[in-house]
């Protein structure tokens, strides 16, 4: 994989990490977090760990996000910071 793509993913990952933490809508934050996890999964794959990437995509991007969304069913979506 070429380094340009790697760089793009890294930038996306860092930006999505910051956005996930600063966005005030928690549901949106959880989606951004899933995007972040997916970016990480791509990074892992690029670094030669496809099975970790696979797991991260399934577990980190999938299950964690679903957990958060499921929990948000019962909570306020707004955050003050």
């Amino acid at each position, binding site marked *: 994989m070429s380094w340009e793509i790697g760089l793009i993913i890294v930038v996306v990952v860092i930006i999505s990490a910051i956005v996930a933490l600063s966005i005030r809508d928690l549901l949106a934050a959880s989606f951004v977090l899933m995007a972040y996890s997916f970016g990480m999964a791509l990074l892992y794959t690029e670094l030669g760990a496809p*099975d970790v990437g696979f797991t991260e995509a399934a577990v980190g991007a999938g299950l964690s996000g679903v957990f958060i969304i499921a*929990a948000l069913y019962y909570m306020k979506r707004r955050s003050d910071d």
Partner: protein
Amino acid sequence: MIAKYKNIVVNIASRVMAPFMMLYALYALFHGHSSPGGGFQGGAIMAAGVMLLRLTLGKERSSRKFPVWLAPVIGTTGVFIFAGTGIVTMLGGGNYLDYGFLPFPFLSPSEHRFWGILIIEIGVFLGVSGIMVTIFDCLTAEQE
């Protein structure tokens, strides 16, 4: 309680997708030794399939397909398979989880290892999927 999602597209799509996800979970499980995949991933995808149903069909209807009490039992069974294999290998005379000592007849030691790992992977698969679904069910449980 998660109610049924009121959108027919989402409903139908998830109903169609869920069996394939579960099938893919099994693929990931059984193909784990020669391509990315294995018990953890497979279990996670399996759990994701169940959760998809829970989220779109609502808890009540999805419980008909996958009862709430089943998840912890599956998880426990998975752990039992894991621990039980280890104990079987111990009874066979080897160390804990030494697959060479599994009591399979007519198999060479390397094949022993292959099947042993597969059994363990199945245990992990069941354990992970069961426990993940349990966590989900607990999170979405009725308010006290």
